[in-house]
């Protein structure tokens, strides 16, 4: 079915192959390994842009590749790139080079293996966003845990073992339930005769019948754990804080989006009836997460922990957009996924640069502000403002659309969503006041300034956010057809 050159397959496996190669480079050639890893990630970005060139924004149809993989069960190696996938694939490809360089500061020993595993993780992330077969989707969803496990467990912070165990148990339990959901879907549809299929596009047309509510819940829980949606979030803070910077960036920037992507790609089109029925519950949980995350962020004195809770709060907000089942809500959620990926990536990168001064991650002792490095303070300010939704940055567009969607779903929903936005502004501004602009701030460590390289990385991320904020049409055009398709399937407004 694929026409000629298997571009998507190549894009998918290039990081994995590159990762294996990087792992094989001898330990003492660290700089070569770092260069090679960055080169691989940039090459993948190039391939991704080439694939984007084959995407037609007007019809929303992108390249598709399909090979029979396990014909016995009707499992196909089926990759596709529609607007929603393309946006997230590009986000992943764009963030990985930053995550690789973000690793440069810390992590003692075994750097080559670290970089190799990060690239393997990239393949897993891309696979999840491109797979059009449920088993293939599950395969990448689960396989990705293996590099994540090692990255977090070997190169993580002091409490890495506890964080790793919690993270793995939560996600494995969630995804195994999803596996049962996949099987139930499959069996329901094969009961009508012969061997079935795991193809999402085929399954989207056929309801699962009486078992649909159960199958929906099995999928929804798996996605809720990954996002995470309240009350499945207790793994989050430890994992984000203990992870090495590069992994924190990918976890909060991309991996969390997998859950929301799952809602949009599987829960809504495959179970439209259930999605409508449980939308109110989902929105309530999403709002609880958005508000609760903001409250937790207010209480934090550690910068990374604050960013982790803020990320949780934002993910709740994005989930709200999805389950508002309205056009602005879903467009906003998709848009906000990209912008939040960039914002939180930037925040974690900035945090790791600012916290290395030796004062730990405490907000009061940041090496930024008048006493310390001015560049660091300025950039942290920028990303904090971007996170709270300052107009001119991408987050403003995303949050605005989500709030609009929430109001369309119900006035109270919209009001509570506004409250969540306001609280986002509160904790971020408080962070800036205490961490950067406190007039009486004592000079703790003689001012540690960002290196030119770190500054350049953060500035590029910032530019991307501003460009998307000023020209949101670039992204909404890509998303338009996919959003319309989901809305048509779920029958929303």
């Amino acid at each position, binding site marked *: 079915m694929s026409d000629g050159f298997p571009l998507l397959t190549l894009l998918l496996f290039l990081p994995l192959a590159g990762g294996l190669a990087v792992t094989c480079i001898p330990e003492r050639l660290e700089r070569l390994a770092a260069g090679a890893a960055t080169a691989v990630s940039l090459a993948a970005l190039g391939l991704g842009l080439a694939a984007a060139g084959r995407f037609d924004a007007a019809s929303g149809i992108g390249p598709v590749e399909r090979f029979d993989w396990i014909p*016995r069960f009707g499992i196909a190696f089926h990759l596709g790139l529609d607007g929603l996938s393309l946006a997230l694939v590009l986000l992943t490809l764009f963030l990985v080079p930053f995550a690789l360089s973000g690793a440069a500061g810390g992590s003692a020993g075994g750097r080559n293996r670290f970089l190799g595993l990060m690239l393997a993780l990239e393949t897993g992330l891309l696979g999840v966003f491109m797979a059009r077969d449920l088993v293939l989707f599950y395969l990448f969803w689960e396989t990705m845990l293996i590099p994540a496990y090692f990255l977090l467990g070997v190169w993580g912070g002091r409490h*890495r073992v506890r964080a790793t165990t919690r993270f793995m148990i939560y996600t494995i339990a969630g995804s195994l339930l999803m596996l*049962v959901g996949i099987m139930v879907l499959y069996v329901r549809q094969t009961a009508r005769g012969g061997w079935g299929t795991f193809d999402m596009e085929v399954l989207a047309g056929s309801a699962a019948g009486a078992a649909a509510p159960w199958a929906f819940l099995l999928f929804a829980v798996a996605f809720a754990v990954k996002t995470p949606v309240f009350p499945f979030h207790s793994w989050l803070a430890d994992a984000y804080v203990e992870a090495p910077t590069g992994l924190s960036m990918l976890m909060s920037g991309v991996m969390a989006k997998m859950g929301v992507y799952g809602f949009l790609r599987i829960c809504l089109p495959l179970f439209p009836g259930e999605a409508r029925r449980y939308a109110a519950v989902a929105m309530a949980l999403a709002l609880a997460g958005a508000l609760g995350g903001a409250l937790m962020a207010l209480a934090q004195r550690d910068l990374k922990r604050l960013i982790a809770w803020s990320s949780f709060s934002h993910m709740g907000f994005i989930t709200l957009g999805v389950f508002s089942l309205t056009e602005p809500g879903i467009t906003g959620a998709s848009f906000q996924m990209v912008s939040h990926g960039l914002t939180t990536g930037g925040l974690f990168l900035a945090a790791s640069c600012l916290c290395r001064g030796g004062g730990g991650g405490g907000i009061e002792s940041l090496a930024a502000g008048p006493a310390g490095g001015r560049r660091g303070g300025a950039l942290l300010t920028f990303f904090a403002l971007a996170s709270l939704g300052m107009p001119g940055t991408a987050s403003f567009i995303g949050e605005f659309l989500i709030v609009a969607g929430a109001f369309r779903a119900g006035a109270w929903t919209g009001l509570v969503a506004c409250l969540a936005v306001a609280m986002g502004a509160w904790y971020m501004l408080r962070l800036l006041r205490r961490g950067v602009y406190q007039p009486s701030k004592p000079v703790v460590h003689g001012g540690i300034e960002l290196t030119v390289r770190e500054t350049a990385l953060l500035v590029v991320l910032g530019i991307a956010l501003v460009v998307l904020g000023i020209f949101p049409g670039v992204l909404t055009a890509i998303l338009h057809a996919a959003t319309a398709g989901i809305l048509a399937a779920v029958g929303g407004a």
Partner: protein
Amino acid sequence: MHAYLPEVVVAAGALAILAWGALRPSRTGPGVSFMALAALTAGVLTMIMPGFAGGEGASLTGEAFIYRVTVLFAASLTVFLSHEYILVSLMPATEYYVLLLLSTVGMMLVAGAADYLVFFLGLELMSLPLVLMCAIGRGSSAPKEAAVKYLLYGLTASAVLLFGLTMIYGIQGSWELDGGDFRAGGAAAAVALVLVLVGLSFKMGLVPFHMWMPDVLSGSPAPVASFIATGSKVAVFAFAGRALATSLGDFSPIWFAILQVSAVASMLWGNLSALAQRDVKRLMAYSGVAHAGYLAVALLAADRLPEESLASLGFYLFAYVFMTAGCFALFAAIETPGERLTTERLAGLGRRHPVVGAAMALFLFGLAGLPPTSGFMAKFWVFLAAVHADLTWLAVVGVVASAIGAVYYLRLVRVIFMDQPTGGAPPVVPGIGVFALLLAVLATIWLGVMPGRFLEFIRYTTHP
């Protein structure tokens, strides 16, 4: 007779080793390992010989092709594991390999039996050499204790089983699996069925008849433990699938109800008990109990969906043999004969031997059922068969149990890669055990990434 050719070849190998050992004074030369390996390879070659046609014959079923081959693979992997171990621990090589090959013949007979008498003879031929192989280990009293336990539990199981089998013979008037009207026996048939099921559960290691597994596996030398965990499990499950799901299927409500409870208990209890283990061989034994539970799910699904479920059983066993033998290959390489192998001994292994550590992690991820390994595909097929057979709740219990299981498998990975060794990382004795690791790695990845052809093959051989 033609159908028994592979068994004959392997038994001939055993006799050849015995003769060679009698003629040569030195009993620990490398030659014996290669003779054993040659006999097993000849057995595999006989199986796949053109014209052999799956080995259908008197009292032997052609549907068991894959199980007999799997048993041969399990035995070959055990030889790879045993070679260095025998040299280090000064075990008598000749006797060891003779027993190994004879036990293999027994397993093949059990796996292929289409007749209760052949099954019982095979079972005894399989178990008695295993008892001696446990006892052969030098050092502390642990191997002797393991041997006595295995003997006593094994004899009990055999007695119960034999009682049931004689009742079956009395009812249907023949030893054949499909011989006569078993249902006519009424209450006596039901009692016979329960007795057979209890006997089989002992050998399969299903709760509540699993108590011998942890003691026997932790007490015996790592290669022997590996052989018990893999070979005998394949053989007994192969027979159970054929006997319960097909021949005794008339009485499905009875065995179904019992096995259902037993499967759920095994999956949950096996995984929960494994959480608490510090001795890695005990841990693997409890993990084996849990895997017996998953395999029992396939047996249960076979009641309504025989073709698909029995094929998934065959695939699961094949994948399980390689992953488990791979783990034990590592244990054999670092074990000090006569000492308990605790999890702490594995600490730091991943730093000192990254490749071996990575292989070990692969097997553990496979046993936990994570893709892209054969363990995932095996679980996928078994649970899919269960959902297909309207046993969705069993699949749900299975995945919950798998999530619990992931905790201790991942903890072992953590110990290997993330914990600091207390007294230096254990030295890995290089040797031909490496081949076992290599084979296991290849099988685990191949069946996880490209299982399509092999799935078709298993489906074809289990139900031509």
